[in-house]
């Protein structure tokens, strides 16, 4: 599952062949004839490094839910946010980045779900990893994200979940029940219906 991640969430950073491609592209660019495509290395056609292959959804029943770590951090807006302060609510914690294509595609569904659960005891929180705050704020504006996101360029929140149910790809969505225990995890892009039913399940058995 995790083996496919690198390709799925952020197609590889430098690698030998990629460099060669970039080298060719660069010489074209320098020569001023980079009219067509610069480089194509989207891991799509092989069928082996696909978001679908990455997708997995898990639900933990009460009693087998690991305790979520106490996370406190700055939001993209500059405020302070503590996950523990949301105790009593189900927390949907979404790990994302503005550079991440699957995050962009799932953003409207997340925004719609946040609106759907507006009056329920459900809080949506994002964690923006490996990103710059300017680009992240621009992303939030594009998708009218109505909930706060932690500013986490060094993946420290992801690290805090080490030993519990860690995010294994971008995007990953964790569900934390009202007693502060992790009740579910979706690795890869969420679907509106899939996450909706998972949240309902956790709401039905809140602890």
């Amino acid at each position, binding site marked *: 599952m995790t083996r496919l991640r690198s390709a799925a969430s952020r197609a590889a950073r430098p690698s030998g062949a990629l460099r060669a491609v970039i080298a060719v592209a660069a010489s074209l660019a320098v020569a001023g004839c980079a009219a067509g495509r610069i480089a194509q290395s989207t891991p799509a056609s092989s069928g082996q490094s696909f978001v679908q292959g990455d997708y997995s959804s898990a639900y933990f029943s009460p009693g087998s839910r690991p305790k979520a770590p106490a996370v406190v951090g700055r939001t993209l807006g500059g405020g302070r946010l503590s996950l523990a302060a949301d105790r009593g609510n189900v927390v949907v914690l979404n790990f994302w980045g503005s550079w991440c294509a699957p995050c962009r595609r799932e953003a409207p569904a997340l925004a719609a779900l946040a609106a759907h659960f507006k009056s329920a005891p459900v809080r949506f929180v994002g964690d923006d990893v*490996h990103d710059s705050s300017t680009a992240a704020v621009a992303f939030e504006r*594009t998708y009218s994200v109505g909930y706060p996101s932690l500013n986490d360029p060094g993946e420290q929140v992801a690290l805090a979940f080490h030993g519990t149910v860690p995010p294994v790809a971008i995007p990953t969505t964790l569900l934390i029940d009202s007693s502060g225990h992790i009740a579910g995890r979706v690795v890869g892009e969420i679907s509106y219906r899939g996450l909706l039913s998972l949240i309902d399940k956790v709401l039905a058995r809140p602890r």
Partner: protein
Amino acid sequence: MTQDLAGRAAGDGAAVDGDRAAVTGEGVAADGGSVAADGVSGAADGVSGAADGSSGAADGGRSRPAGSRLGVLGWLRWGWRQLTSMRTALVLLFLLALASIPGSVLPQQGIDPAAVTQYYAAHPALAPFLARLSGFDVFGSPWFAAIYLLLFTSLAGCVLPRTFRLARSAGQPPPAAPRYLGRLPQAAGFATTLAPDQALESAAALLRRRRFRVRKGAGWVSAEKGYLHETGNLLFHVALLGLLVSVALGGLFGYKGNRLLVEGDTFANTPVGLDVFRPGRLVTAGSLQPFSITLKKFSARYITSGDQRGQPAKFAAWLRYNSRYGGPMRSYDLQVNHPLNVDGVQVFLIGHGYAPVFKVTDGTGAVRFDQPVPFIPVEQSGLTSAGVVKVPDAHPRQLGFAGVFLPTEIDVGGRLASAFPAAEYPRVSLVSYAGNLGVNSGQPQSVYSLDTSHMRRLAVSPRPLAPGQSITLPNGLGKLTFTGYRRWVSLAITYDPGQLPALVSAVAALCGLILSFLVRRRRMFVRAAPAGSDRDGAASEMTAVAVGGLTRSDAAGGFAAEFAELATEIMREVRGEAAADSHQPGGASTGDSHEAPPLAGDLTQAAGAKGE
């Protein structure tokens, strides 16, 4: 029979020697003396040799399975014997080497998924076929695993029984001396005035002093030494097994990752924080060591004059790191070939480059992008680097830029180039695009490439920008400013729990090999009898002493010399004893004063069965 002996001895030169000794054994046996045959074939492999001999003889008829008479159990035993034979082990070793060739010829999914994708594009018919044969995941394929496991079983099946045999043989006394020592490869004889029993006693004492294991019988002494030969042999095989286990450990529990880190940035060792992550089969996100690393500063010094101009003089990356979330921070000065070690994980500095900082304002006048963008070096002498800038949240149009960063820009006949790797005269040249970047579709993209198939190239001259300069895009689409640059490093993170065991195994294998080459297992036999028995009864008080020697594996050579020395010493010892016994002055020379038949003079030495 020799075939089977060789088979059992699997894996070393000793097997060949075993063969030879066995053949000799047969020859001697055919010659007559059954005791001699026993002695020789026993010496071929000590106690284990005897066991081999019997098992070899036992399946002499079985090694050519005779159809239905064999039965299921017989076939199984035959198969097992074939599998654990040295020949099979060598064939498997060769197959393993052969099977890893496609792994280096074809691109591998776990190592370079982009290359696999390119392969699919270039060979649309062949690629799916190769994929079905695990051609893109050779080292994880069932057939590779099959070879590996068979080799492992073959080695284990060979080594473990041998270990038990050695343990048993270590506790056993040497075999009885053969009757006719003259038939042994090394033989000698001399005469003495000492009584046979006393002569044997003194020879045994000498051999004991020389740390032989000695056994005495009626009229003979047999001694053995050099058990370390077999021990070295076994050490080699066990170490080979250890090496395979170590590799498996690394493959199951180890992982490799890469991360490009810009000055001032931090990353956490999680699958989320790594750019490339290649976990072992049993590695989960939870098994990664939870450290974080911040790159405070990177510096590169280059040679500025002479032939070596532009060559790197020193790279250094100043890191701050902690080994767990919220743990205390420590500093480290990371250099090439001087990795940081955190909880057994090694972090190597494997690359560096420039990350120009761009600030992009979109058509609405809002800043949508302001960050360093790593550019990848495309050549080393001037560190010309290529990269792309994607602004997916620019409005009304998404913006993209592709181009190069030139640390020390020069103009070579209208073409841009970089003359020096240090940033003496940094410039950026970009081509601008507007349209659809393709990222909103959810299809993962490389952050180093720009898909311009749904973008329009903007009519902006790609003239080089100095820090602080801007491109103003046409039609009010926005503005890009090159505000400066930062350095980045590329880190390789490797965790291989099999590394230390592999090193220990390799050293042990070498030690075992050296030991088995240098130490030979050898036997000395001494027989003493009244000389009158086969002479004219002239000297009835004389004793004929025969000395024989045998070694199984004399890879290092020199047993003949050792035997000669030992035999001479035995003679001296025995004759010295004789002199003391008869209270005659003159010591060792006493023997010479006797009227001496050929045997009584100096030591007569014979080689092989031609002795005497």
